[in-house]
Each structure stands twice: as C-alpha cells, then as structure tokens.
C-alpha cells in the first residue's frame, strides 16, 4: 500500500507492506539515527515521535504513520544540540548506540515537563536502556543542562 506522511517536516510518500514496521521504513528513508536494540519493545533505542508523541518504532506499523507526522533525531538536531553537550561533558555518551532513543525521549520529557526532579527524570526515561554508562552520568548531564538553563551553577544536581 502507499502511505503519505510528514517525515521531519518533509512530505514523503512510501510503498509499504502491511507488516512493515515504522522502524524499517525510517531506516529505509535514511533516518539512520533510529536504532534497534531488542525487537521486543524493551530497550527504547528506536524511540521516534509520532505526532510529537514518543513511540517505539519497532512496535508501530508503518501504515499507522499514514497521514501523520513522524520526527526522528535527524529532524531535531538543534533542539538536541542544546543539551547533549552536557551529556558529552560527563562522558556519558559512551558507545552511543542508545543515545538517539535516549535523546529523543529526553526531548519529549523536557517539552512535557521543563523542570523535572531527578526522580521524574529517572521515571520518564526508565524505558531507555543503556548498558555502558550506569545511568548516573546521563542524569548528571541532564541536571547540569537544567541548572545552566536556570542560570545556576552546574554542580548541585547530586
């Protein structure tokens, strides 16, 4: 079947099978930031926005995107660049394979809740697995970003 969607702001037409996942479609369209870590909706690596709501693209059929807007990290470079440097300062990017999904979900969190507590951050991102960092560095990075935005020092997150 043929579907029409908005991918990162551009109108896209795609021929998909009934069982094509949104994940497969996005990589086929060159959105290589979208990663697959598990195939069972457990890892959060394939997180993208469907009409601005974070979804796991490995578990959404491409056909569901018909007539809707899909956003990947390729489409949010500036919004991401705003805070990911704080993650880099912690060295918490590590292997990086989980980063795009984690960054997408962090953007969703901050849009929804611009001033989250540490527990709210942990809770919102609980579905984003990372095997390298032990998570604390990611939290420190987000906290440092939030503090910098408030114009405070960067060290009172712990």
């Amino acid at each position, binding site marked *: 079947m043929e579907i029409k969607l908005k991918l990162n702001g551009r109108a896209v037409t795609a021929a998909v099978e009934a069982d094509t996942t949104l994940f497969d479609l996005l990589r086929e369209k060159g959105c290589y930031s979208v990663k697959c870590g598990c195939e069972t909706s457990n890892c959060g690596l394939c997180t993208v926005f469907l009409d601005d709501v974070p979804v796991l693209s490995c578990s959404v059929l491409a056909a569901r995107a018909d007539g809707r807007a899909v956003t*990947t990290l390729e489409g949010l470079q500036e919004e*991401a660049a705003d805070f990911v440097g704080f993650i*880099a300062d912690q060295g918490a990017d590590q*292997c*990086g*394979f989980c980063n795009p999904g984690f*960054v997408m979900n962090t953007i969703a969190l901050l849009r929804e809740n611009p001033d989250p507590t540490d527990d709210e951050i942990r809770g919102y991102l609980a579905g984003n697995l990372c*095997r*390298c960092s032990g998570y604390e560095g990611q939290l420190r990075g987000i906290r440092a970003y939030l503090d910098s935005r408030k114009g405070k020092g960067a060290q009172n997150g712990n």
Partner: protein
Amino acid sequence: MATENYRYVGHAMRKKDSMQLLLGKPVYTDDIVPRDALVVKLLRSPHASALVEEIDTSIALKVPGVVAVYTWKDVPKTRFAIAGQTYPEPSPYDRLILDRQLRFVGDPVAIIAAENEKAANKAMRLVKVKYKLLPAILDMHEALDNPVLVHPEEDWYPPCPVGGDNRRNLVASDVESNGDVDKVLADCDIVIDRTYHTRAFQQAMMETFRTYAEMDRYGRLHVISSTQIVFHCRRILSRALGIPKSRVRVEKPRIGGGFGAKQTAVCEVYPAFVTLKTGRPAELIYTREESQIAGSPRHEMEIRVRLGASSDGRIRALDLHTLSNTGAYGEHGPTTVGLSGHKSIPLYTGSLEAFRFAYDVVYTNLQPAGAYRGYGATQGIFAVESAVNELAERLGVDPTELRDRCMVREGMNMPAYYGEPAAACALDRCMAHCREMFDWEHRYPVRDMGNGKVRAAGVAMAMQGSCISSVDVGSATVKLSEDGTYNLIIGAADMGTGCDTILAQMAAECLDCPVENIAVFGADTDVSPYDSGSYASSTTYVTGKAVEKACNELKGQICRIAADLLGCAAEDTVFEGDRVRCAADGRTVSMEEVAYKSQVGNVHAAEVTATHSSPVSPPPFMVGMAEIELDKGTGEVKVLNYMAVVDCGIPVNPALARIQTEGGIVQGIGMTLTENVTYDHNGRPVESSLMQYKIPTRLDMGHLKVEFEHSHEPTGPFGAKSIGEIVINTPAPAIAHAIYRATGVWHRELPITPEDIAMSRPEETHRA
C-alpha cells in the same frame, strides 16, 4: 598530585566522537554499508546435540530473491577458533563454518543469502533437515570423562598445551601452588570451605553482533565488523576461509558496545563466506534473540574455596578449585578460568602463607562462552570475597578491618599473580577512603526499618590486570600534517570506552599541543599498525605506552627536519610544541614550516610507528560498598547506595574513568540480582530477549558514588594502569554480604532473586 603537572592527561574532556554519537549520525556498521547487500540469515539447530542426517535446500532455493543456501557440505574442512587471542591461541581449533554435528541449541545448520530479509526468512523455513538426535550433556558436573563426547572429531586441535583432551570433554586443566597449603590449612584455627556458582551472564551490549563483507576494488575480501579485534579477526577469517591474509582487510567503524563479546569473531565468518562464494556484498545482523542464545557470554563457573585463617583474622591459606563450563566450543575457555584464581588469591598476599589453585574446563552442549568484562576474575572474586566476608562474620570482626590486616600492599611481590610485583598499589587507601565516604561505621550495622524492611551493608575488594604480560602488543603511528597538527593511527578498538580520546590526550601531552590537534583513526588492518586489540584491560596501559614512545620518537624526527631549516645540528634544537628552537641563538621555526619542509626535498620521515609490550600486568585495585534495603516478606532487594574507590594508577580522563566505573558497577548489580540464565529441558536458554533477561534500568541501581585514589605505576604511561574490567567485580560479593547481614543467609549462587531470598531460612547458612 602529580597529574596537576600535566596539561591534558588527568583532565576530564569530551570524547572525540561525542557529538556524532549524541546527535545520531550514521557511524555504526549498519549505517554505513550499501543498502543492496545480500541479507544473510542462519538456520540454527533446535537440538542441543544432533547430527544432520539429510539436508535438502532445493525448495528454499526456489523462493524468489534467494541467492544461495549453504550447508556443511559446502564449507572448508579446516577447524579454527573464533576467540580473539594472540597466535598460537590457547583456545582449541574446534569449529567449522558449518559442522555436520550440532552441539548446542543455536548451532548454525545452514547459511541463507537473499536479496531481502523476508525472502531469507521464508527460505530458512523451507530448508528440510533430518536430524539424528544424540545424547546431550547439559550439566557441567557430568561432562568430565562422560562417554558422550561433545567433540569426538579426530581433527580437534589445541594450538597451545593447556591440559585439554577432547576424549574427556576437557578443554583445559592445571594446578599450581605455593607453599604447603594442606599443612597450613591443618594448622589453621578456622577453615571456611564453601562452593560458589555463577552463571553464563550476557554482555547484552546494545548493538548486537553484526558484520558486512564485500570484494573491494582489488578483489580482496573487505570486512566491516563491530569488533574489538580487527587483526585477530583477519587471521581467523584467513584460516576459516582458506585464503591468504593479504587477501583480507578488516575494519571497525564505531562499535555499539562490546564488553568482551566482540573479542570473539562470533558472526564474521558467515557473511565473509557468502561474499567469497557469490562475489556480492553481504551483511549479517544478529537479532537480540540470536545474541542471547548464540553469542559469547561469561563462563559459568563453580568455585570451591577453602580458606584457612587464625582466630585473630589472618588469612593464612587459600585453596581454590574452579570448574568452568565453556559450552559447546572452547573460546577463551583455557584462559578465563585462570583469572578466577590469579585475580582473587593475590588480594590477600599480605598475610597468605600458602595457596593452591586448580581448575578444569569442560565442554557441554550449551551455548559456547567467551570473554566478558572481568574474564573469570569476576567469578573468582565473588567466591573469595564472599568467603572472606563469611570469615569476618564468623569471627565477629569488622570485614574492612580484617581486610586491612591481610590485603596486598605496595611493594609486595605476589606469588599468586605470576610472581609479579604490586609496584603501584593504593588498595589500603581505597579501603580507608571508601569506609569514610560510605560512612561504613553507621551503615554497616543492620537497621530494621519497622515496616518489614531491613537496611544492611556489605563490602568487597577487587583487582584485575592491565594486559596479558609478555603477550599483548600495542602500536601507534603518529604523523605530522601540513598545518602542524597530527594524525594518530591505532589498531586498538574504541568500543565506546573512549580510548581514541585518552590516547589523543597522551599524544597531546607528549607533543605539547591541544588535543584538538590530534586526529585519531582506528582500526583497520590495512592502515593501523599491529595491535592485539582492545581486551584484557590493555589499551590504556599497553597502547598508551606505544603512543608515548611514538610521540617521543617523532619529536626527534621533527627536530631533525627543523635542524635543516635552522642550519644547526639536530642535537642543538629544542622541541617546543608549536615551534622548534635553535638552542644556540634562539631562532625558531614554526611547526607549520617544519611540516611543509617535511614534504619538500626531505629524507627524515615525519611519521613514526612505535610498538610496546609489557613483561608485567600491573593490577588496578578497588573497594566497593553496597547499602541495600531488603523486604523480608517478598525478598526484594533494592540497592540504595553503591560507593566505590578505584586505584587505576592515575585516571587519564577522570570523567571517562568515572563512567567506566559506574557502568561496570551497574552491570555487576544486574548479574547479582536480576540477570538470570536458565535452560529448558532441551538446553535452550530461556532468557532469550531483553524482556526476560533483565538488565538494570535506571530505577534499579540506587545512587552511585565513585572516587579515585591515585598511585603511580612506573611502567605505565603517565603512571596509568587499567580501569575497564575491574569495575564489574565488587557488586556481587558486596551485595551478597549485605543480603546475609539482612537475612542471616549466605547466598552462594548468582543471581540472588527475590524468590531465593524469600524461600530461604537462616539455618541454611550452616549447610553446605
């Protein structure tokens, strides 16, 4: 502190690839290869032990889009090992690309290559196989001298003498000792005799195994793989495929995590074989299920510890026997087991009078094991540290004070550690520092919270190595560019750890230039100087030293070129980072002028390759302390706080060293509490997805606090030792200790699940 004299070493800075990774740029294997590559899939054995009696691919080949289906009849008959180790490998040559005999659930039966995934999957279902079921060995205790042989083949071959015998299901066996351990044990006031069991835990790196292969423009096999070992991989492919090494090129792009899993060429041979046969590009990406059931996990081990001590808490003797389960193939079997003793017993060099360490490594019809961060030390340290905690509790002595009396200290020689010295050792300071940071005095006492929950704490020490002594080789090439910047080319593999960055920091320190002026490239067998690869915690220590050597030699070359420009003798020049000065008259030439001169009528190479190997493997040391809250009703354990102090010599990049430590601790918490490995009646791992194999989320690890105690390793670059592996070793014994404190029960098997805790009773502590 010595590091304050350095401008770049000892300073936190971003990883060179940070922004590429965080902004989701295409940098991994599957992001950079052509889209029209053949999709490779493997039909896997549903049986733990079977023979392929008949196999019919004719129907599968009729599926539109299917290009080839290969079976055992199509592959070379030379056995090889896929363990990434220096030749001659300690691991036996016990594999074929496809074997008629199948040895575990998941062993490949056929290779399918198709234009797309759908066709490949459809063809896989249409390969008709008649299996002859054979008896299987699913329990490692039954393996040795069982009449059922996992590897009955005549051409089984061990390149190294490691005490193995395939007619006994034995991969390796050895015993070593120092002093009369039986005599000392007989003389001890107290002997703790316990057996510990750890499972085949999965690395579960986020990027599963994957490899792409193509014929390049010279007609050579070009392999792009997510690997920690490009050079070993080239050698393995050459042997497995029967083609010369000069016809193979292996490179790695960015790697989505390894933790040792990718120190084994788990999937490289299959797409490489397809490309050689078809001449077409081919790519194989393991599903998470394949990574879980046919990967390269930790060796399951059972370790018996006999620990003898005096009544005042001096550990006098340690007697270890390790039974290790290598599974269906022997990758890393003979070597992982060694660390279970060599990196646990020496922790007590301070008081030890005698030790013995014996082991057997056996084949079973289960998933083959491999290398996983800690590499056997993790298992051995769980056993020995648990036994030491049990000793302390039995004697009623504070377990940190007991360790103060017995631990290895700087300047000691370690008989149980290949007779090597502890030239840099801050373990005593790590203990004091951690005790204070953790507030051990107040957290160690058990606290009943009055709501069915109990808070308690536990402690453990750890060590590791910094390379394989006299074996690992690291190299670095440094070359000057026209604008006075440098290229640093390495064969070590940055798998997220940040080695590209810390090696650039070392180069910047030597060459007295900003880290941004060092462009790093790695790793590619056609381009990189030889490096055994990123494993055994060796990159900082071995490759780092090679970088230091290369930079110092390059400075000499630069001064020679500058001397021509300045019209003075090379001995009279001074390297000053951005310029070279003539000492006699103070005239200088800029690095840019030197660089351009190096390209005009010049005979001094502005490029140096240096190689390093070390006769010693200086251990890093660590102390970890866990505070838990345990629900007595449900057995649930929450880690509230995990604090650790590490002596890695000096941390070259403190931010990255801290993240390594935090990440290792969380992996350790996972294998202690939630990551289980069980098998069904047929030997198939039950935990075949991340839904069942529960790696920690950010809600499962409590608060981490990591600090460092510096020491100065005289043989390390800038005094550095290693950090990558040691960090996974303390959580299991420390948390098991805390669980004992909370419940009165010692759990000697990992993981320790809520069910185990809820169903256990205190008196069981005396069984066993």
